[in-house]
């Protein structure tokens, strides 16, 4: 049971069914339910939110298995850090990059091949290979080698492979883009805001990072199609003051989705927290304003989506997991994600390898030439396991947002020194519960156009196809 303020209370079940109650209803429920209206009593019984036995245990168990089906798939996101070199010197990222001319920061062919062996040891059918850096385009030859290697290993078609690449797009030539088009490599880039802000935060030698990324988006669209490039901002203090401005920058670039993620507390960003950082409360205030603006634009018929809200809404409304590896329980670290670093070490998540770059060596699972099972049975995985199951974390187990949330043992290990962490002092918890609060307040308020937008986002539909949200649980 979680208090939403203003006399509204959220209750939820292990299966993700929920009800939004008035304080009076919540009191009546706790007193045994006699004081509830017949309609409300039936609502709660049907959603498994009362003690009335009337459920079918086998069906409940099937619902639980469906929600956690990702566990059987093993790691589905395989991140290759083909090089740590990058020509940008972003303030919040300096430790997880190396200078363009530096030696010893590229992945070897042998390690790339060994990492591919790990990918194909994963039991799941749908596998994503993501290229990261550094700037992976500086070693596009390795990207080609890995894509072609993966395809030849998949000659029997047993796996459904997806490729993605995180890049500034500056260094992708026409031949590279043609390769991306041929192999359907999805491109993801960063736009932190308008050009002055972006260029200030992401300095490159020629001081034209924004212009070259925008130019790259144009070339990539021409080669790969309108929807082949996604962009996301790293929201720093500088962007925080102008939520509308950030959204408008994306609109002006024809980017229809925006992922409003706060600056990462990992790696160098922690050390520059005073310059770039902000409190979670400040981020949530920014987020609420940006979301309101995006909802207003959507209601007026514009195609635009906030990606994180879409993921959380999918978690709230769908009986299936979204597949998003960064928010689930048990956590995606290692169990859903494997990171193969340029130096041949394997990590359970991108954040873990960034923490390792700052000198914290506890996160390495082993080397890429060890079998996947060994990596998953490593001391690092056992250590992280203590904080990997949200249902077992004190105070999470009483939170009504739990069925939609996840555990982040790597984050808590980095920030608190312990994978379980302390929820009372956890910025992860404060941010997640704050975001859920914002979304549930919208659901509770029930503006028809907002619910229509939320429905389109949650179920991946064109908003025009959603004539009305239909019934929405309250």
């Amino acid at each position, binding site marked *: 049971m979680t208090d939403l303020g203003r006399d509204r209370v959220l209750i939820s079940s292990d299966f993700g069914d929920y009800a939004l109650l008035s304080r009076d209803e919540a009191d009546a429920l706790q007193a045994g339910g006699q004081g509830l209206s017949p309609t409300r009593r*039936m609502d709660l019984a*049907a959603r498994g939110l009362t003690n009335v036995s009337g459920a*079918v245990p086998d*069906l409940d168990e099937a619902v639980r298995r469906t929600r956690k089906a990702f566990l059987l798939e093993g790691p589905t996101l395989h991140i290759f850090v083909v090089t740590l070199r990058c020509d940008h010197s972003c303030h919040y990222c300096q430790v997880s990059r190396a200078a363009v001319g530096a030696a010893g920061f590229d992945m070897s062919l042998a390690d790339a091949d060994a990492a591919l062996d790990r990918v194909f040891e994963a039991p799941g059918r749908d596998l994503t290979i993501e290229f990261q850096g550094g700037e992976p385009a500086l070693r596009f030859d390795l990207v080609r080698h890995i894509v072609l290697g993966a395809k030849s290993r998949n000659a029997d078609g047993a796996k459904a492979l997806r490729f993605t690449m995180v890049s500034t797009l500056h260094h992708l030539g026409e031949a590279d883009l043609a390769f991306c088009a041929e192999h359907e490599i999805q491109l993801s880039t960063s736009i932190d805001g308008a050009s002055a802000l972006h260029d200030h935060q992401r300095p490159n030698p020629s001081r034209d990072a924004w212009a070259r990324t925008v130019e790259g988006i144009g070339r990539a669209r021409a080669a790969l199609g309108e929807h082949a490039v996604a962009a996301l901002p790293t929201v720093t203090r500088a962007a925080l003051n102008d939520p509308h401005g950030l959204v408008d920058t994306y609109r002006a670039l024809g980017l229809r989705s925006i992922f409003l993620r706060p600056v990462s507390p990992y790696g160098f960003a922690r050390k520059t927290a005073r310059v770039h950082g902000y409190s979670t409360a400040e981020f949530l205030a920014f987020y609420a304003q940006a979301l309101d603006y995006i909802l207003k634009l959507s209601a007026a018929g514009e195609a635009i989506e906030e990606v994180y809200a879409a993921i959380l809404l999918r978690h709230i409304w769908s009986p299936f997991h979204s597949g998003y590896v960064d928010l689930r329980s048990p956590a995606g670290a290692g169990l859903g994600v494997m990171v193969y670093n340029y130096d041949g070490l394997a990590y359970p998540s991108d954040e873990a390898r960034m923490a390792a770059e700052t000198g914290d060596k506890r996160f390495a699972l082993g080397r890429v030439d060890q079998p996947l099972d060994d990596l998953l049975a490593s001391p690092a995985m056992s250590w992280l396991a203590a904080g990997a199951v949200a249902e077992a974390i004190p105070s999470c187990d009483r939170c009504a947002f739990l069925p939609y949330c996840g555990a982040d043992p790597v984050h808590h290990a980095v920030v608190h020194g312990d994978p379980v962490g302390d929820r009372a002092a956890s910025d992860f918890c404060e941010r997640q519960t704050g975001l859920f609060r914002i979304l549930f307040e919208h659901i509770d308020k029930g503006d028809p156009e907002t619910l229509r937008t939320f429905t389109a986002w949650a179920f991946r539909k064109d908003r025009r196809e*959603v004539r009305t949200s*239909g*019934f929405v*649980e309250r």
Partner: protein
Amino acid sequence: MSIGLPLHTHAAIEGVERVELLKVLTPEEARGSHLGETDVLLLEDEALVRRGGGPIRISSLRNPEVVGPGDVVRLRPGSSLVSVLYRRGSTSNTLFATERCNSLCLMCSQPPRDEDDSWRVGELLRQVSLVDADEPQLGITGGEPTLLGQGLADVLTACRTYLPSTHMHVLTNGRTFKDRGWAERWGSAHPDHVTWAVPLYADVAEIHDEVVAAEGAFLETLQGLYELGRLGAAVEIRVVLHAITIPRLPQLAAFIYRRLPFVRHVALMGLEPMGFAKSNRDRLWIDPADYIEQLRAAAFHLADRGMSLSLYNLPLCVLPRDLWPFAQQSISAWKNAYPEICDGCVVRPHCGGFFASAGPSWRSRAVRPLKLEEFA
């Protein structure tokens, strides 16, 4: 007013000494058929004739149109009745499994009779062997077909043998599937070719059990649905819309999506003014014009979530335009008829229409002819 072809007619019948199920064929088609002379009634100029076995001759059909090539007919000794059990080209052919039922739904259109009719299994097996092998779909209905027990498994196995590409659509209340042994026996008889169409009337036991007049039915049906889901069977949920089911229809839609996400199709059906529905009119009747809000809430909840959905037995003029894509023109030909008020309606050829038996008291006040100008 147009009423479809009846399924019975009278005739002068000679030579029938026991119940006979026979396939009507033209002499030309009979020559190429795998069926033997004893199975076939040849459609000749003046009469229907069986050459093999004991010769049979049917002449002076009162309504010759009732019987056509490809049909399967039943003849009884000492009776002048020719009953069509299967009509080639009809989209609503069914195997009638039993008159028995373990529920007693308030709106049952085919009130059950508690008599041992297990003799039907033999007829059904025979009927299956005579249906056109390229028939796309065949229904199985009752009563509650699973009360045939092993007989139902045998009928489905016969379908697998004789009609390997025909899709079977079985109406069952799902309660008996709570027994895993039976669920597996029925579910494995003809896998991948059966849709189990199971009614669910509410998201809570007290309403569902009231509608089917059987205490404990809700939990049994849910357990049965679980067993069907576990087998990977194709399941359709059917909801009859009336005064008792309407208030929680939106919540039922949410329940289906969240608890039964394996369901392949949901059918929402207007009330048929037949059988028990007539005697329970006071408890059941609600003008569809008064439940559009609940219908939309449920329909779009499901459609937005990617659930396949159909609306049956509801005239188009009663439905808001955004629900039209879900409306099916499905009422069996013999039930579908239009009152005078529909004259001149431009969407009549696409309309789900009316039950021939329904009087004006069963008609929505929203019924009216739609004019072409409204679509400009």
